[in-house]
């Protein structure tokens, strides 16, 4: 008899404890991020597709067209073209194309670059209707970014 009553009372109490927990959550602020209208800042180590880094001194790219990234890429999705600079030594970047349809975001290109000229972007809104939209002209991208 005592056990019967004890069980009822402890059971009822546990139900009230449960209600207490949910009402606490009820009054806490919501954690929903309403995606298209609100966005969270991307984490620093997020790996988007690669992009060229701006050289703060010259305002152009840091790339010297050594072609290491092109060689390092296992999928062959990077194409680097350069022109001989007039009156100076070395080459100037004329074209940097990334075929993102083949890229697996391995990051070997970023690792292989000795000049810190490429990095991962934070771009993730990449929906598109045509395959051609995923061949990025990274030089143009860098210029447009100004």
């Amino acid at each position, binding site marked *: 008899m005592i056990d019967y009553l004890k069980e009822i009372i402890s059971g009822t109490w546990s*139900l009230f404890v*449960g209600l207490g*927990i949910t009402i606490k959550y*009820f009054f806490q602020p*919501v954690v*929903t991020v309403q995606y298209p209208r609100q966005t969270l800042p991307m984490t620093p180590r997020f790996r988007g597709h690669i992009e060229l880094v701006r050289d703060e001194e010259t305002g152009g790219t840091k790339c010297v067209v050594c072609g290491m990234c092109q060689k390092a890429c296992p999928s062959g999705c990077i194409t680097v073209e350069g022109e001989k600079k007039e009156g100076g030594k070395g080459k100037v970047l004329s074209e940097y194309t990334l075929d993102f349809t083949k890229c697996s975001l391995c990051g070997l290109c970023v690792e292989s670059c000795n000049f810190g000229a490429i990095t991962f972007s934070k771009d993730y809104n990449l929906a598109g209707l045509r395959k051609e939209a995923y061949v990025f002209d990274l030089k143009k991208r860098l210029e447009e970014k100004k």
Partner: protein
Amino acid sequence: MSLHPEVIRLLIFLVGIIAFAALNAAYLVWLERKEAGHIQRRIGPKEVGPFGLLQPLADGIKLMTKQLIVPAGVDPILFKIAPILVMVPAIMSFVTIPYGENLVARNIDIGLLMIFAFASVNVLGLLLGAWGSRNKYAVISAARVVSQNVAYEIPMLITVVTLVMITGTMNLHEIVMQQQGGFWNWNILNLAASPLMPVAFLIFFVCMLAETNRAPFDMAEAESELIAGAFTEYPGMGFGVFFMGEYANIVIGASVATILFLGGWQCPFGLFPGVHWFLLKMYFLIFTVIWIRWTYPRTTFYSLLNLSWKILIPISFFNLILTSAMIKVF
């Protein structure tokens, strides 16, 4: 030709009651979704209108545009009459509920009895709808509803009998008038009549949840097991009317609990009694009903019946005997 003022009064009350029931059904769905959202730290409906307030309207239009399919093999009469059988008793029960001192359609001397008489028709509606749908899920659901309601009607009515013994009347208006003053005069704290009154309120509330098939006792439409239980075959507004009936029954249950235990339209401090106090208490109880739904998981069917037969019925019987002894002695 001039209408008798009594006829006009009845017409106004009829329209008012139907509007109240429909409005409550619509906005309790909104409240349910909003409250569920916030308990889970989400937002809930927000796109349609400010705070999603037009969501019930959008849902209603969506339900109304759907084709009313009558599946092959159903009982044509029972299938169509069942939603009405759930809705009409709920609206009938509103007739005798006093929302304010003079705000009652018909003050009937046996109002309490009438409400419980109509409340049990609700089960019949569900049973007929489920049986008429020719669907196995629906029939299982109907069997559950009936046994659940039979089991929970007993402790509920014993508690009500206890209360009627204390108040000495079944007239809801008089029951409220007896609880005049402050909250210490409410029946829930009427410890002089029976020290178990708060427990009686708890029993009544639990039985109300079970009678209206609310979680954690929603065995009738246990989605994960029975699709939608008795409503499985109902399309569009047939389902909509069932749903409105369910919510109207919750409103009735909360109103009766308010009248019997929480002093109806009386103010807790004896100041400015009025319909606002009634609505405040009623909506607090409804809030609690929804709060409970989003806190507890559904029980199994056996523990549901065990709770009634092994715990609620003995305790309510004990309370009945205790109360009658107290009345006899003091």
